[in-house]
C-alpha cells in the first residue's frame, strides 16, 4: 500500500479526492489535513508517497508549507485558480488539477506520478518552490519553523540575513530563525530596493541602517538600529550607495 495525504481546507474538496481514489485500491489515505500546520506534522509523521495539496489555505499557503519540510514528498496540486502558481506547476509539478476536475483527469495525474521516479520528483518540487517564491504574493513574508512552531515573518520585520552553511539566519527583533535556503535565493526573492547584499554572507534591510563607517583598509561596516555591525564589502558598498541614493 502506498500512503496518501490530502491537505485542503475545504471538506468537500477532500471528499472528491477520496472518492476518485476509491478506484485506485493500491493507494491508501493515511490522513486528511485542514491546513498547512496539520500538513507539516502529518507529512513528517507518515512520510507519504504522494500528497494532494491545495494552494490557498489558512495562514500559510501550500508552497510555504512545502518549504518547511526537509525533503518534500511528491505533490499533486489541486487548486481553483492562481495565475502565478500555474506557471510554477507547468514547469515543475508532477501535475496540477484545476478545480473542478473529473475522474479521468485525476487518473491521468496519478499515472504521471507513478511513472516518475521519486528522485526526480524531489528535484522538481525544489524547482517548483523556487519558481513559486518569485510570485509577488510570496515575497512579503518568510515562513520559518522554530522547533515545532511555525513562524510567519513579515519581510519588513527582518533586520538582516546571514549565510550559515546550508542555511540562512534571518535576524529579527525576536532573535534569528533558520531557513533552508541559499543567500542568492533571498537576493532574488526580496525587494532589491529594500534588501541589499552588502557582503557575500550578508543581506541588509536598508531601513535598519543608522550609519555606515569605514573599516580597516578599504572595507566598510554598517551599523543597524539594533546595534548590530554588518560587514560591507567594496562591491556591497557600491550597491548600498546606489540604493540609498548617495
Amino acid at each position: 500500500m502506498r500512503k496518501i495525504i490530502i491537505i485542503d481546507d475545504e471538506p468537500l474538496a477532500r471528499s472528491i479526492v477520496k472518492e476518485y481514489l476509491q478506484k485506485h485500491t493500491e493507494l491508501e489515505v493515511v490522513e486528511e489535513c485542514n491546513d498547512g500546520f496539520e500538513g507539516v506534522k502529518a507529512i513528517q509523521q507518515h512520510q507519504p508517497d504522494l500528497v494532494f495539496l491545495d494552494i490557498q489555505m489558512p495562514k500559510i499557503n501550500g508552497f510555504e508549507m512545502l518549504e518547511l519540510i526537509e525533503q518534500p514528498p511528491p505533490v499533486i496540486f489541486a487548486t481553483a485558480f492562481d495565475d502565478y502558481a500555474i506557471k510554477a506547476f507547468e514547469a515543475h509539478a508532477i501535475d496540477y488539477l484545476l478545480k473542478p476536475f473529473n475522474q479521468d483527469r485525476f487518473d491521468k495525474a496519478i499515472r504521471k506520478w507513478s511513472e516518475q521516479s521519486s528522485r526526480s520528483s524531489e528535484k522538481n518540487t525544489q524547482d517548483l518552490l523556487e519558481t513559486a517564491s518569485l510570485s509577488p504574493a510570496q515575497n512579503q513574508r518568510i515562513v520559518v519553523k522554530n522547533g515545532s512552531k511555525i513562524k510567519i515573518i513579515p519581510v519588513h520585520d527582518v533586520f538582516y540575513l546571514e549565510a550559515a552553511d546550508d542555511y540562512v539566519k534571518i535576524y529579527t527583533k525576536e532573535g534569528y530563525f533558520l531557513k533552508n535556503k541559499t543567500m542568492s535565493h533571498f537576493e532574488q526573492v526580496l525587494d532589491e530596493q529594500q534588501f541589499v547584499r552588502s557582503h557575500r554572507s550578508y543581506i541588509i534591510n536598508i531601513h535598519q541602517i543608522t550609519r555606515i563607517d569605514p573599516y580597516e583598509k578599504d572595507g566598510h561596516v554598517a551599523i543597524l538600529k539594533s546595534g548590530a555591525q554588518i560587514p560591507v564589502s567594496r562591491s556591497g558598498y557600491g550597491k548600498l550607495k546606489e540604493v540609498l541614493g548617495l
Partner: protein
Amino acid sequence: MSASPFSVKQFRIFFISCWLTLMLDQGIVLFWFGLPWQDAILDSAISNGFLLSICLVMMNIYRYYLPRRERFLNLFGVCLIFSSLWLIICKWLLRLVVGFYATSPETLYRSLPIRVSMALLILGCVSMVSALWYNTAEQKENELRKTDAEKLTKEAELFKLRQQLQPHFLFNSLNSINALIGMKPDEARKMVQQLSDFLRGTIRKEENQFITFSEELEYLKLYLEIEKVRFGYRLKTEIDVSDDTPRWRVPSLLLQPLMENAIKFGLYGTTGEVVIGLRATIADKHLVVAVMNPFDPDMQMPPGTGFGLESVKRRLFLLFGRNDLVEINKTQNSFVVIFRIPETHA
C-alpha cells in the same frame, strides 16, 4: 454649431430697437445740420440700411468661424476692412441718390470721418457681442460633453465594481458541487440553485442601482449559504439586524464584497472555527452596518487581498461623493469594517 443670438427673443427686440434709434437719430442730426427732411431720411436709410446688412453678414460669418481668444485682434482688423468698404460704397451711393450732396458735396466729405468712426464702433460692438455669445455657447457645449463623458465612465465603473466576482469563489463552489453530486445529490442540486441565483444577482442591470436592505440581506444569505457548504463547520455567522432597517435603500451588491473580504481574512488568516458578524442599525439618518471578522495580529496577509474594501469605498464615493462613509476598527483580535449609508429618495 451653436444657435445664433437671434434665436433669443429679447435679443431680437433689442437689436431692432437699437437700429431704429440709430436711423432716427441720424436723420434728426442731418435735418439739424440743414438738410431737407427728405434727403436726411434718404441718407439715414441708405447708410444705416447698408451698415445693417454688413452687420448681419459679419454675424453670420462669426457663427461658422470665430477667432480663438488670443486672436481677438483679428476682429478689429475685420471691422476696419468692412467699415472702409462700407464708407467707399456709401459715399458713392449717397452722391448718386441724395440730391443735396449733388449740389454741395463738401457737406458729405466733411461728415465722412464721423461716419466711419460710427460704423467702426457699431461693427466692433457687434463683433464683440458675437464673439462672447459663440464662445460661451461653445464652452457650454464642451461642458455638457464633459459631464456626459464623466457620467458614462462613472456608470461603467460602478457596473464593473458591482461585477467583481472572485474566480476562486466560483471554481471552488463548482468543485464542492462536484463532490456533492456523488455523495448527496439533493444538496448538490440545492447548491446549483443557490449559485445560479447568486450569479444572476451579480449581473443585475443598472436600473437596480438601489435596493432595499432586506433584499440585499437575502442576497447576502444566499452567498453565506454557499460559503458554509464550502467551509463546513469552520464558518459561523452571527447576523443581528434591528427592526427599522429592512426598508432602507442601499446600493446593490455592496454588502457581499465586504462579507467576502471578512470571510477571506477570517478563514485564511486564522485556523479553527471562525465567526463572522454582521450588525445593522439606524443612527443619525444613516444605516450603519458593521462587518466583523476575527484577526490574527501576527499574520502578514499577502498583498492584493482586501480588494473588496477598496471597491466599497470607491463605490460609496461615486454614489454619494463622500469619503467619510467607511471606517475600519482593528483591535487585538478582530477586524471591523463599519460603513454608513445616507438616506436616499431614489
